[in-house]
C-alpha cells in the first residue's frame, strides 16, 4: 500500500516547507490586516448611559435609555459622527446617588466615555454632575426635572432637557387658582425634586392670590398613603398639588382612585411621566403636565413613534412617552453639536450647545425651543393634559388641553440661582 504523499507526488520536505509558509502567512497576515484597519478607522465616540434599571425610577430609566439608543442607532446608520462610530455602555444607577457617583467615575476614568447621558432622579443627576465637573465631561441630564438642576445645582458641563417643576407650575397654577379655588394642599416627595417643585408651586399659588394650607412630605418608597389621604380629607383643600414621582406616584394614584377621592377635590400633578402611568391607566385623573405626547398632531411625531416601535417591538411600554422622547432628543442634539463643532473637545461642544435654537418641527413640539445659555436648561413647550374620555386606541390616554410657550413658562428663579464657572475654568476634556 502506497503512502498518500507518494501518490500526490509531494515529498515530506515539500510538505514541511508548505506548512511553514502557511503558518508564516497566517501569523503575519491578520496582523497586517489589523494594522491597516487601525490606520483606516477612527476611534469610536463612547457614551456612558447613566440610566436607572431598578429602584423608584427603574422603569423610567429604561424608557429613557430606549430613546437614547434609538438616536445612537440612527447616527450609526448614517456612518456615525465625524466619521467615528458611536459606542455606548450602561450600568444600573439604581435610583441611588452613591451608585450614580461610582458609575460616573468608572465611565470616565476606566471606560473612556467622552460624554455622560441619562437621569430621572434629581439626587442621582446631581451626584453625576459632581463627578463630571471634576473632569470637565459633558453631562446630559435627560429627565430629572427638579428646578435645582438648572438652578443652584447648575453646571457649565451639564445640560438639562426636561421641563422643570417651575415650568409646569407656571403653566398650571394661575388658571387653577382663578377657576378652582384658593386653598391648596401640597403632597411632596421628600427629596430634592419634590421639595424644589413644591416650592415653585407654592410661589406661583401665592403670586396668584392663593394659600397653601398644608404641605405633607412623603418619604420615598412609601406604599401606604392612607394617613396622608385621611389628612387631605380633614383639611378639605380646593386643590391638591402633587409632586410625587415614579412607583410612589403609581401607588398613590391607585389608592386615591380606590377611594374615589378624585371626585372630592381637584388634583394637579406637576408632571406625569409616561412610564409612571402605563400599566395603571385606570388611575389617571386630574390635570397634569408633560412636555410631549406620542399622539400630538404635529409633523414627524407619527414617523418617530413608528421608528421607535420598529426598534423596540418587545418593549414593555408600547409607545414612546415624554421620558423616551427626552432621551432621544437630548442624544440627537449632543451628536449634532459634536458634528457642528467638528470635534469632541468639551469646550467646543459646550459653545455649540449654549443658546442653541431648535425648531418646533424638528423637536415635534408646538413652539421653537432653545438651550438657555445662563442655566443650560432647554426652554420648551409645556403641555397640560387630562384623562382622555375619547381615546382612539389603548395608548391614547391623554387629552392635551393647553400648550404654553417656553417664554411664558420660563423658570425666572433659576436664572438668579444658577452661578456657573466660566468656560475657561472648565478642565479641557476630549477622548
Amino acid at each position, binding site marked *: 500500500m502506497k503512502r498518500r504523499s507518494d501518490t500526490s507526488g509531494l515529498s515530506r520536505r515539500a510538505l514541511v516547507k508548505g506548512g511553514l509558509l502557511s503558518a508564516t502567512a497566517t501569523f503575519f497576515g491578520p496582523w497586517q490586516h489589523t494594522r491597516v484597519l487601525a490606520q483606516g478607522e477612527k476611534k469610536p465616540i463612547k457614551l456612558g448611559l447613566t440610566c436607572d434599571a*431598578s429602584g423608584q425610577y*427603574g*422603569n423610567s430609566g*429604561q424608557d429613557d435609555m430606549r430613546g437614547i439608543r434609538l438616536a445612537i442607532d440612527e447616527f450609526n446608520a448614517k456612518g456615525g459622527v465625524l466619521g467615528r462610530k458611536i459606542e455606548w455602555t450602561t450600568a444600573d444607577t439604581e435610583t441611588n446617588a452613591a451608585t450614580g457617583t461610582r458609575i460616573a467615575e468608572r465611565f470616565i476614568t476606566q471606560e473612556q466615555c467622552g460624554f455622560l447621558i441619562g437621569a430621572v432622579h434629581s439626587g442621582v443627576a446631581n451626584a453625576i454632575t459632581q463627578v463630571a465637573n471634576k473632569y470637565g465631561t459633558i453631562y446630559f441630564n435627560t429627565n430629572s426635572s427638579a428646578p435645582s438642576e438648572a438652578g443652584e445645582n447648575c453646571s457649565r458641563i451639564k445640560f438639562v432637557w426636561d421641563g422643570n417643576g417651575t415650568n409646569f407650575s407656571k403653566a398650571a397654577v394661575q388658571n387653577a387658582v382663578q377657576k378652582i379655588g384658593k386653598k391648596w394642599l401640597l403632597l411632596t416627595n*421628600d427629596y430634592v425634586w419634590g421639595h424644589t417643585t413644591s416650592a415653585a408651586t407654592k410661589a406661583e399659588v401665592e403670586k396668584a392670590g392663593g394659600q397653601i394650607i398644608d404641605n*405633607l*412630605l*412623603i*418619604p*420615598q*418608597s*412609601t*406604599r*401606604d398613603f*392612607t*394617613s*396622608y389621604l*385621611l*389628612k387631605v*380629607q*380633614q383639611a378639605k383643600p380646593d386643590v391638591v398639588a402633587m409632586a410625587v414621582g415614579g*412607583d410612589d406616584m*403609581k*401607588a398613590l394614584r*391607585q*389608592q386615591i382612585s*380606590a*377611594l*374615589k*377621592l378624585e371626585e*372630592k377635590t381637584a388634583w394637579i400633578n406637576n408632571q406625569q411621566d409616561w412610564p409612571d402611568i*402605563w*400599566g*395603571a391607566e*385606570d*388611575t389617571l385623573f386630574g390635570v397634569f403636565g408633560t412636555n410631549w405626547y406620542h399622539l400630538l398632531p404635529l409633523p414627524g411625531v407619527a414617523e418617530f413613534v413608528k421608528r421607535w416601535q420598529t426598534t423596540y417591538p418587545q418593549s*414593555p*411600554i408600547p409607545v414612546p412617552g415624554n421620558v423616551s422622547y427626552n432621551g432621544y432628543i437630548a442624544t440627537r442634539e449632543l451628536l449634532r453639536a459634536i458634528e457642528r463643532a467638528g470635534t469632541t473637545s468639551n469646550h467646543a461642544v459646550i459653545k455649540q450647545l449654549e443658546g442653541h435654537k431648535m425648531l418646533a418641527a424638528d423637536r415635534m413640539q408646538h413652539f421653537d425651543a432653545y438651550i438657555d445659555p445662563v442655566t443650560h436648561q432647554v426652554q420648551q413647550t409645556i403641555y397640560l393634559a387630562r384623562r382622555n374620555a375619547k381615546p382612539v386606541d389603548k395608548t391614547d390616554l391623554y387629552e392635551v388641553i393647553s400648550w404654553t410657550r417656553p417664554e411664558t413658562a420660563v423658570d425666572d428663579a433659576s436664572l438668579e440661582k444658577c452661578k456657573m464657572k466660566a468656560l475657561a475654568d472648565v478642565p479641557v476634556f476630549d477622548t
Partner: protein
Amino acid sequence: MSLLNLLPHLLNGIALGLLFSLIALGFMLILGLMEQINLAHGSLFALGAYFAYAICGAKLPLPPDVLVAWAGVPLGLRFATAVVVAPILVAPFGIVLERLMRRTYGRDPLYGLLLTFGVAMVLEELIRVVWGTRDYMMPVPRDMSGGFIMLDLIWSTYRFWAAGMAVVAMGAVWFIVERTRFGAMVKAGAHDSEIVQALGIDLTRLRVWVFVLGTMLAAFAGVIMAPLWGIRPHMGVDAVVPAFLIIVLGGVGSFWGAALGGLLVGMVVGLSGAYASEWSMLSMYLLLIAVVTFRARGLFGKKSVLEA
C-alpha cells in the same frame, strides 16, 4: 389636636399594623422556628400577588375557551379562588428553596442569608421575564372595593377586609404552632434537633413543611396586599424590610412579638404620617432603636440565630 381628629389615624394605624403583622408572619415562622433568615420572603410575597392576578384576571396559560369560561365566573369567586390557590402554587418554590438551603443548616447564618438573597434576585428576574416590568392592578370584588363613610371621612372598604383576613391568618398560625402536634414538633426541632431525631421524628420532612407553611403565608400576604400596593416586580422589597424590622422589634421566634410589633409599627407609621409626615418611614426605625436600646432581644425575644 382634638380626639375626633386623632381617632381616624389611630384606627388607620391599627389596620396598617395588622397588615404589617400579616407580612411578617411567614418570615417569623421560618426565622423563629428554623433559625433561617429568608431574604427571599419578599419575592415569594410578590409571586403570590402575581399568581393571584393571573387567577383573578383570567391570565392563566390555559386553552382560550377555558379562559373565556373562567373569565365569565363572578369576580368574587375568582378572588376567593386566588386567595386559596395562589399560596398553593407558590408552595413548590418554598420546597425548592428549602432543598437549596439544606447545605447551610448548622453553619454560619450568613450562608443562608446570602443564598436567600441570591434566590430573591433570581425570583425577581423570573417575574420580569414572565410578566414583564409593567405594573398590574388586582381586581377586587365590588362588595369589597370602594369606600365607606365613617367619622365624616371616606375609608377604604378593602383595607378593612384585608385587616380582617390578616387576623384570621394570624389566628390560624397561632393555632398550628401552639395547639397542634405539628407545632410542638417544629418548636422542639428548633430547640434541640438531635433529641427530636432521636425520638424518631423525620426532621428533614418537618423542615420542608415549615418552609411550605412560611412560603404560603408570604404568598397569602402578597395576595391580600396586591390590591392595596399594586403589583410590580420589586414589590417584594417593600415587604421584606418591614417584615424583618417587625421580627427584630417583636423578638425573634415570638408569635405575639410579631403581632404586637406589627401593630406598633403600623400605629407609629400611621400617626407620624398624619402629623409629622416627613418622619413616617423613619419612625419605624426610631421605634426599633428605642425598643432594642432597652430590650436587646426585642419585646418578647429569646436568644436566637441573630446573636450567633
